[in-house]
């Protein structure tokens, strides 16, 4: 009877490990969560306005875009790639979506639906090209997406003639600042995306093979899987998420400009890295990315309330990125790879 119970226990343990929840991963995510908690406690105690409902929903709104971009970035970094083009792509997707959104004679529903399709479609095309070019010619994604960074920015400026698009349907913008129990709806959208990404990465064949490729590409290829498909898919997913982020951006700020999103790719990469995902690929979780995005958001907000200048804030964020990787190195050494 006891023996039976025991096997039962290890079987669920094995099931969890297969879904990517080894004790080591849990420990890592818990560590990042603890760091976030300490930051929140610190700012709550040291500043007057940090722990107020208003400020909290403010933070959540602020991190939404970065979180959505970082979820896509997680897919790319897991296969050992990098996507430097998401900031420029955000601008390109936004101006394409914004142009559709301002077409006269469309009902609000039609305009929003078509604009969403257009923005996501633009992101998908750019992401597909990123993935396909780097996989087909065996080029480092760093180079290809550096090219796309310029192409997408140039395209955004070209189609708008460098002008800003505004005057979107009022109900669209009302949606952007909608709250449910003090939580911004756009943040809830980001959370849903995190949940979907978590499911895909930990429960599906697709996710399993992305981790596999990040760990040992050749073993995956020789086991009969098309590396091309999975690489292209990861970049395409990142592109689609850029399209969603572009819609959220327009709903919140009421404009679509070809010069938005500069440097956003680096914030997204920072969130992924602080969240414990390895830049070499094959290791990390989207839950870590969620926590990483929260840490950068809390830091940005808290340090300003603490009375530090924006310049100081930027320096401290930089220190945190480096610290996160150093801590990760030690953790790896202590618990064994």
């Amino acid at each position, binding site marked *: 009877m006891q023996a039976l119970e025991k096997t039962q226990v*290890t*079987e669920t*343990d*094995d*099931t*969890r*490990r*297969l*879904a990517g929840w*080894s004790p080591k991963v849990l420990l890592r995510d818990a560590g990042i969560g603890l760091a976030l908690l300490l930051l929140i406690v610190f700012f709550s105690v040291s500043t007057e306005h940090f722990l107020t409902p208003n400020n909290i929903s403010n933070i959540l709104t602020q991190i939404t875009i970065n979180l959505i971009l970082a979820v896509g970035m997680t897919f790319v970094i897991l296969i050992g790639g990098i996507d430097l083009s998401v900031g420029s792509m955000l601008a390109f997707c936004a101006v394409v979506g914004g142009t559709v959104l301002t077409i006269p004679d469309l009902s609000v529903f039609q305009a929003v639906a078509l604009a969403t399709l257009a923005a996501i479609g633009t992101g998908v095309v750019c992401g597909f090209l990123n993935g396909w070019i780097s996989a087909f010619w065996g080029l480092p994604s760093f180079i290809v997406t550096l090219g796309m960074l310029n192409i997408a920015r140039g395209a955004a400026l070209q189609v708008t003639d460098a002008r800003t698009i505004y005057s979107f349907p009022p109900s669209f913008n009302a949606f952007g600042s909608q709250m449910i129990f003090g939580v911004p709806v756009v943040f809830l959208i980001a959370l849903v995306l995190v949940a979907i990404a978590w499911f895909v990465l930990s*429960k*599906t*064949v*697709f996710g*399993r*093979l992305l*981790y*596999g490729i990040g*760990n*040992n590409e*050749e*073993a*995956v*290829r*020789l*086991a*009969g*899987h*098309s590396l091309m498909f999975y690489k292209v898919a990861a970049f395409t997913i990142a592109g689609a998420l850029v399209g969603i982020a572009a819609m959220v951006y327009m709903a919140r700020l009421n404009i679509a400009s070809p010069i938005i999103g500069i440097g956003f790719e680096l914030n997204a990469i920072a969130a992924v890295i602080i969240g414990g995902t390895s830049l070499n690929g*094959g*290791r990390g979780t989207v839950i870590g990315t969620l926590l990483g995005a929260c840490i950068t958001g809390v830091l940005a907000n808290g340090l300003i309330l603490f009375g530090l200048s924006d310049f100081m804030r930027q320096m401290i964020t930089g220190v945190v990125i480096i610290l996160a990787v150093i801590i990760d190195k030690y953790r790896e050494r202590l618990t064994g*790879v």
Partner: protein
Amino acid sequence: MINAETVRAQAAGVSTPPVLELHDVKKSFGGTRALNGVSLSIQPGEVHGLIGENGAGKSTLIKVLCGIVRPDEGAINLAGRPYMPTTPREAKVNGLQVVHQEFNLLPYLSVAENIFIEHLPRNALGIVKRQEMHAGARAALDAIGLSDIDVHWPVERLGIAHRQLVEVARALMTESRILILDEPTATLTARETERLFAIINDLRSRGVSIIFVSHHLDEVFRICDRVTVLRNGETVFSRSIAATSQDELVRAMVGRKLQQQMASEIVSLARPEEALSLVNFRHLQSPHAHGISLRLHRGEILGIAGLVGSGRTELLRAIAAAELPLSGELRLEGAPISFRSPREAINAGIGFVTEDRKEEGLILNMPIAANVTLASLADVSRAGILDAKAEIAVTQRLGAELKLKYGGPGKNAATLSGGNQQKVVLAKWLARNPKVLLLDEPTRGVDVGAKAEIYALIRQFAERGLALLIVSSELPELMTLSDRILVMSQHRVVGELSRPEFSEERILQYAYQGEQQQGRH
């Protein structure tokens, strides 16, 4: 002067003290004994051949001598003084130079920079004196007869043979007492080999001792004064070259006692149906128009022997479409078929256990179950969603069948020993129920106990009708497992042996003969 004297002393038959002496040197890596008591003595001004089968310990011995690997036991004396280098630099300071088998040149730097890389001539400001460097390099190349190479050229412009000679030139830049040449002729053509031999003769007359590692016995007989044979990490004998013969060396490399193992009669399980056949099958590196032709039956274990570089691994990789074949025909169960990717080969029923488990076979940092199901994910998922319970069940079933010793299906593959890791790779293919299984060095890095288990498993697979093609550098292994053995040399099949004809001497004779016939034109 001293050198001239020692040469004369030798000629007069007076025994001179050896310049290098090894006594009972041992070295283990993990559980594997690489060196198990090597003794060796090198006289000043002699060319000493060092031979042995793949894995006999030659490479480890060289690493010990040049300070890359520290031995566990044993004593080494260099010119009468204890010698135990801890860095390659220390070995060089002591006058010991190595020309390695794999290239250590920097491809984008010039020939001159490569030759002088260890001691670039510099002025007081630390700026390289280019003219002096180029003149020095010119002289060094002229000295070994490479007048046709421009020292300004980047090394990448040179052919492989010239690169090897540039390596030699670099090693000769420093006055050395002992020069180790590791398979120096492997990439050379006949003309360049002659050139190298002239250099060796010149060095010998100047009193430099040379350790000459080679697979080519004819070369050993041409250039060496003495020869030492290694087998399983031990010195079998050292002998004057005049007092031995090719046959004796081959026998010494193989070891006589192994033949008795062969006595145990194993009945072939081969069935009449053909599983796989190749007709004039060529891979990209194959230099021969006719390629490889062979026939493999269901339940048959076909061994492929040959020296390193004879094209065995390339053959398996081309069959599995890991690298696409160039031409020729592949028939699976009699029907011609061609694969454009490993995926197509796998779907047709071919499994491929690669030579390099860690780089190509396993995902070490992922769970054992994920590794077992890697090639059969469709069987353990529905609509793309993984069924973890099914994965665990498959792993437990195959784990029991293969006697896998593991902490649990969820533990990472990295936690397993070499033998158990190999069983996971086997399980990955068994989960697909293949028709043909290709095995490249199936017991590399596996301890003796697990080896026997893997042999038994391979026989079991054959019993079930699986057709097996096995490449191995360990001849006893091939002779234990195979129903038939093909010997490859220079990307061709040069001999075929049926079980009653198996002997290591015959296999090696085929392998070396093929080499000599084909080698140099």
